[in-house]
């Protein structure tokens, strides 16, 4: 019964979304306030209906209702509760339901919190948001109904792919979706602004929090997925340049660019049509990603269903929304007037450079992802484009970005002189050189490329610290006590920026350690035998059988002792192989112990004869920093989001006179004293 109600709510939501898509848009064109006002209640009702549908499906999962086909295919009565719940979005139909629910959530949020938005902009934004939702709801109702019944109901379900039964992965899809789909509201804002023909500082200030929110979740979602790959797949890798990873990474790159260009629109009233274009491209890449993943064109763990009918539908959806928005852009963008002027060496110039590099990087990732598809269409050759391609293209684009990132925040708006700024950065530069030399001594004889990553990382850390210091103590006349007071009074947006940039710095260090400085040993050992890995001795102490809730585990215990420390301290690592009872599938649970400078990582393999087990052991320096860095980035996003300026600040269009620089954040401005 509840499943039928869920299905009914889903269909009803389609009707409400249709009303929301049409009436407010017509109202905005005619200037009819009552028609425009329809947008708010419909957005709320649509969200309530979809939330109900989502909870109805969750109810079916939680109660293991095997008369619902979707539950049969993806759940099992023995599964732990967390994975019963995460099973809801661990499949094609359920993940789509999550997608539309999140779209409606963003619509409802704009309806609730957008009270001071101009009515026309608000009505159009909500209408466009609903139009996209209509497309997805049609797709669901016609091809992917999550509430389909099965008769007779089987006694037991087929279970969720055990690889997906993992805490990291339970939260990866919802976070990623909030990020992905969050870009839809930015897209809707952009299209609405194009229709209105008006983009100004106030618009940028309305849009930036949504971009920030989406970006923060996208960052967290990507990091969770990467973390899962790191400990669950047992290869010790964290990023494989898999097409599906790229699908989430491209919108991230573009959203990052947009986050920065929106600042220029807000502060200097320029780069408007570029920012609009980024908003359109960002969500288009989300849609392309969804198409690639859902259509089965590209195959990977994420491809739940490869059904051509569905692929064609998503392709149509893609063509209509991307084609439509670009046509709108081509038609309306030339009418957007340009604003403030700036010299190439200036804050604007630095942000433009940031944008150029980030979008170029996104373009190379897109090309690398789609090239195999094109080539196959044209020549029928099957090829794959793997990590070497991305290392050869993506990394050379990122290095200048990071070097410039160290300088950009010091440049004043409009025009700047590089000499005094570089003089300020001498300390950071010396710090970077010192760290690199030190690192060179420590890792002597290993990959020299790693030093480049470490140098960039240290340079960024130096720059972030210098930047905060300059803000709180712009001249020598300010005492340290006073400077400390200013430190506490820095606006949250400033802290947000510093935290995010610092996060990038240590992610770079972590990624360098993970990909270039790792020590790997693959050996066959008997119980009691020891393997040397870097400065550690790994001893396999025991192998035992341990029952789990819905699996049987073979657990290998490793004792690890640092070789040269002189102490007796040792660590225990327990790696498991789990065989799942429902379908016999095996998963590897790597044992990982994190320290501040490195991870110790052990995987137990199958029996290798003569009482031996094959084991895979790693010493992975700096890897914990990678996860810490992404946490810093997410915190940075939320700090910036909580800034006063965005919460209560200007969203009043009258406040932003064209061509005027809106009042900057209070006294501790980012400008160097010169």
């Amino acid at each position, binding site marked *: 019964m509840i499943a039928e109600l869920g299905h009914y709510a889903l269909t009803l939501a389609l009707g409400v979304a249709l009303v929301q898509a049409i009436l407010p848009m017509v109202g905005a064109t005619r200037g009819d306030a009552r028609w425009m006002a329809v947008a708010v209640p419909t957005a709320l009702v649509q969200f309530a209906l979809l939330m109900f549908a989502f909870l109805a499906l969750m109810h079916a999962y939680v109660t293991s209702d095997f008369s619902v086909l979707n539950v049969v295919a993806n759940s099992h009565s023995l599964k732990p509760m967390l994975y019963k719940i995460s099973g809801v979005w661990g499949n094609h139909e359920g993940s789509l339901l999550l997608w539309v629910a999140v779209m409606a959530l963003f619509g409802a949020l704009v309806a609730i919190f957008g009270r001071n938005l101009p009515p026309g902009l608000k009505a159009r934004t909500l209408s466009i948001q609903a139009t996209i939702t209509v497309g997805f709801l049609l797709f669901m109702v016609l091809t992917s109904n999550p509430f389909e019944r099965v008769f007779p109901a089987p006694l037991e379900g087929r279970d969720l792919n055990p690889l997906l039964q993992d805490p990291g992965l339970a939260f990866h899809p919802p976070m990623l979706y909030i990020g992905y789909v969050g870009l839809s509201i930015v897209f809707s804002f952009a299209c609405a602004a194009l229709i209105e023909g008006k983009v100004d500082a106030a618009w940028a200030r309305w849009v930036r929090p949504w971009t920030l929110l989406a970006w923060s979740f996208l960052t967290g979602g990507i990091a969770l997925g990467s973390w899962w790959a790191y400990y669950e797949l047992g290869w010790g890798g964290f990023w494989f340049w898999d097409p599906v990873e790229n699908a989430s990474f491209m919108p991230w790159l573009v959203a990052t660019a947009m986050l920065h260009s929106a600042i220029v629109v807000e502060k200097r009233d320029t780069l408007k049509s570029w920012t609009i274009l980024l908003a359109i491209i960002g969500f288009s890449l989300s849609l392309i990603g969804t198409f690639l993943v859902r259509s089965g064109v590209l195959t990977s763990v994420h491809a739940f269903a490869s059904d051509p009918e569905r692929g064609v539908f998503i392709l149509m959806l893609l063509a209509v929304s991307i084609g439509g928005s670009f046509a709108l852009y081509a038609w309306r963008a030339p009418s957007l007037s340009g604003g403030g002027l700036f010299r190439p060496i200036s804050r604007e110039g630095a942000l433009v450079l940031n944008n150029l590099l980030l979008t170029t990087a996104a373009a190379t990732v897109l090309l690398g992802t789609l090239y195999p598809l094109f080539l196959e269409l044209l020549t029928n050759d099957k090829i*794959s484009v793997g990590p070497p391609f991305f290392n050869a*293209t993506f990394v050379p684009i990122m290095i200048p970005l990071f070097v410039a990132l160290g300088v950009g925040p010091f440049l004043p708006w409009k025009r700047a002189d590089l000499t005094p700024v570089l003089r300020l950065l001498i300390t950071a530069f010396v710090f970077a050189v010192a760290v690199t030399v030190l690192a060179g001594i420590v890792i002597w004889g290993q990959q020299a490329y790693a030093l480049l990553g470490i140098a960039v990382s240290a340079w960024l850390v130096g720059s972030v610290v210098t930047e905060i210091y300059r803000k709180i103590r712009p001249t020598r006349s300010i005492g340290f006590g006073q400077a400390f007071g200013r430190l506490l009074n820095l606006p949250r947006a400033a802290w947000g920026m510093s935290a995010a940039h610092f996060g990038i710095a240590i992610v770079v260090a972590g990624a360098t350690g993970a990909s270039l400085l790792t020590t790997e040993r693959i050996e066959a050992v008997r119980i009691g035998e020891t393997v040397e890995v870097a400065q550690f001795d790994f001893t396999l102490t025991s192998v035992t059988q341990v029952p789990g809730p819905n699996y049987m585990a073979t657990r290998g215990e490793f004792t690890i002792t640092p070789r040269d420390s002189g102490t007796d301290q040792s660590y225990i690592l327990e790696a498991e192989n789990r065989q799942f009872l429902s379908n016999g599938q095996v998963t590897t649970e790597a044992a990982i112990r994190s320290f501040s400078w490195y991870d110790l990582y052990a995987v137990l393999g199958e029996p290798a004869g003569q009482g031996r087990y*094959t084991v895979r052991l790693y010493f992975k320096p700096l890897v914990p920093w990678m996860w810490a860095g992404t946490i810093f980035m997410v915190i940075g996003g939320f700090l910036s989001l909580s800034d006063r300026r965005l919460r209560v600040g200007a969203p009043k269009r009258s406040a932003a006179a064209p061509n005027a620089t809106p009042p900057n954040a209070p006294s501790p401005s980012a400008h160097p004293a010169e």
Partner: protein
Amino acid sequence: MSDAKRRSPAARRKKVRLTLVLCGTLFLAAATALTLSALQENVTFFFGPTEVTEGKVPQGATFRIGGLVEVGSCHIREDGVTREFRITDGSNAVLVTYAGLLPSLFRDGQGVVALGQLDTGHSTFVAKEVLAKHDETYMPTEVVEAMKRAGTWKGDESVAEIEASGTSDPCKAKA
């Protein structure tokens, strides 16, 4: 700078736009050059077992091979580390060696893709990577294509057949 000051705002705006467009073009050109050179060097082709046995693979090339794990062919060598198995498309099979742990989804009759090179004798494929990270009912499209080319693809039946004949045991050490 003094030059720019004397011009009208419209002219200056034009100049800014021109600079931006030039910079953008420059970046795109650099990126294209990077990408093209990377594509030439870093693309790996895919071959099925039949194409490999017929000698269609260029000398010394790194490529991917895909097919089904021949039932009962997998075992662990004396050293306890090297795995050995045959990849088949139903008519031809290629011996593959891999030093390391096979993915947990690897098993008899399963579709598998490996990345590596042929050894000097052109008889054995030395794998650097073995991919079988899909679920138990999944069949890599490349493998299906390779089997179609070899004329051994019988639709989903052939998968079911192989699955029925395969045991769920992965690689075993030689007794």
